[in-house]
């Protein structure tokens, strides 16, 4: 019954042949993006702090890094890492790193991490700069250590400003990850190209389009929930609607397992 309905919209034969591969492709894309975005935000935060450092050398270096990675295409960066660094085989063998630069997967992860770190550095920098000066001064007046001030006072407030642009950056990463298919990685885009080269059925590209749009929409929804949660103290006075969708219940229990 369900299959019959599905058959009205898509080619069932094609679905049987490539359906699982497409789902695997989605998995690969998700992994690629999740890993590089997470590593990229750690590096990005450090770079963002370096951009605001008192040391001129640190400011200059991080500035040059950000300028380079934001000013050139990700495609060129990926090729530079995979083909360029990958060509220095003797060097990597001597350093014991050949296993890393030999694999397209690691190179793509590295390229995406370095690239998103540059964009996230600017987001974190903007967020940190948006925290009013008085917050830092008040923390200093209370005798708080610099690190504690950052972790407890500055960072949480910076995140409120940074959250939305970070969500946009995550979506941009999902889209940019399609480039990985050009270095033999079978992410969603790679699977699509492979299947198309075998079947010459254009419908496959439309499946990929729908799947990408679904991924992006899921991230947008998730981010809206995150944003509501991070800014809940700002709405303390207003009446909070009772959320009863399964998504909000699930995210609530994931984010805050103790509160029932």
């Amino acid at each position: 019954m369900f299959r019959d309905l599905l058959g009205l919209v898509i080619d069932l034969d094609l679905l049987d042949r490539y359906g699982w591969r497409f789902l695997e492709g989605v998995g690969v894309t998700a992994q690629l993006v999740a890993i590089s975005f997470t590593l990229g935000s750690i590096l990005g935060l450090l770079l963002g702090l370096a951009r605001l450092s008192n040391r001129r050398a640190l400011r200059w270096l991080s500035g040059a890094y950000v300028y380079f990675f934001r000013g050139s295409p990700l495609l060129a960066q990926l090729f530079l890492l995979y083909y360029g660094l990958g060509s220095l085989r003797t060097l990597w063998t001597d350093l014991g790193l050949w296993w890393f630069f030999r694999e397209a997967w690691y190179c793509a992860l590295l390229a995406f991490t370095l690239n998103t770190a540059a964009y996230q550095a600017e987001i974190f920098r903007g967020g940190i700069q948006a925290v009013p000066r008085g917050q830092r001064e008040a923390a200093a007046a209370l005798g708080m250590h610099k690190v504690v001030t950052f972790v407890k006072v500055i960072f949480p407030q910076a995140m409120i400003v940074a959250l939305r642009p970070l969500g946009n950056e995550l979506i941009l990463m999902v889209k940019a990850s399609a480039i990985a298919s050009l270095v033999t990685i079978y992410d969603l885009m790679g699977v699509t190209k492979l299947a198309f080269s075998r079947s010459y059925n254009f419908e496959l590209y439309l499946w990929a389009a729908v799947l990408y749009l679904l991924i992006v929409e899921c991230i947008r929804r998730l981010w809206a929930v995150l944003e509501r949660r991070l800014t809940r103290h700002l709405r303390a006075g207003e009446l909070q609607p009772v959320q009863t969708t399964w998504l909000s219940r699930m995210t609530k229990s994931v984010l805050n397992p103790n509160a029932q």
Partner: protein
Amino acid sequence: MQDIFSLLSFSEGGWGSALAAGTLVTLTLALTTLPVGIFLGLAVALMARSRSPRVRAAATVFTTIFRGLPELLTLLIVYYGGQILIQRLMAAMGYEGQIQINAFLAGVIAFGLVLAAFSSEVWMGALNTIQRGQYEAASALGLSKWLSFRLVVFPQLMRAALPGLSNNWLTLLKDTSLISTISLVDIMRQTNLAVGATKQPMVFYLTACFIYLLLSAGSGLAFTFLERRANRGHVRG
């Protein structure tokens, strides 16, 4: 070191002139796409403010799709899809045979659609900065709808939109590198060819990155000039 310079030189055996030709192709593609994309974006932004809910919905669907799809996928869909579409049309008219769609045209259409979706957000923000009184004053002066848009609204719109549009342009410039995958010989493709011939990927991919950096830096200067020009009649505060 000498090697590297001779590889990048403009003389015999050097790839300098090939890379310059590629740069020209990249710039031509980006500059052709720019007006297509930003004016389509303006149209979408105006549609999003329409009184008819159907037109508004069409604008939302457009931006959701082309902001959400990977640029590479959009490009391939336009390239292969366009090919299939034209082939079917021609077959219906009785022409059988292979038709190759022009990669440049596919690029202009695909990147134009993406640019339109992103720039429409910029235009919408800019449209919000223009106060109602401006429209009312223009109509009080007896200006037609089109004239009041061209003479009153648009100059103010440009001022508010330019910073956002400059970001859109920089993204477009970098996105055009994807056109190399459908074999238009731009910077990236030329670089790939050079790497294939010389086996010097480090040198050439770094060079490609720096050419893009130079183009970005040059655009930065151009936009600073344009912004100053757009703000020339504006008194701050």
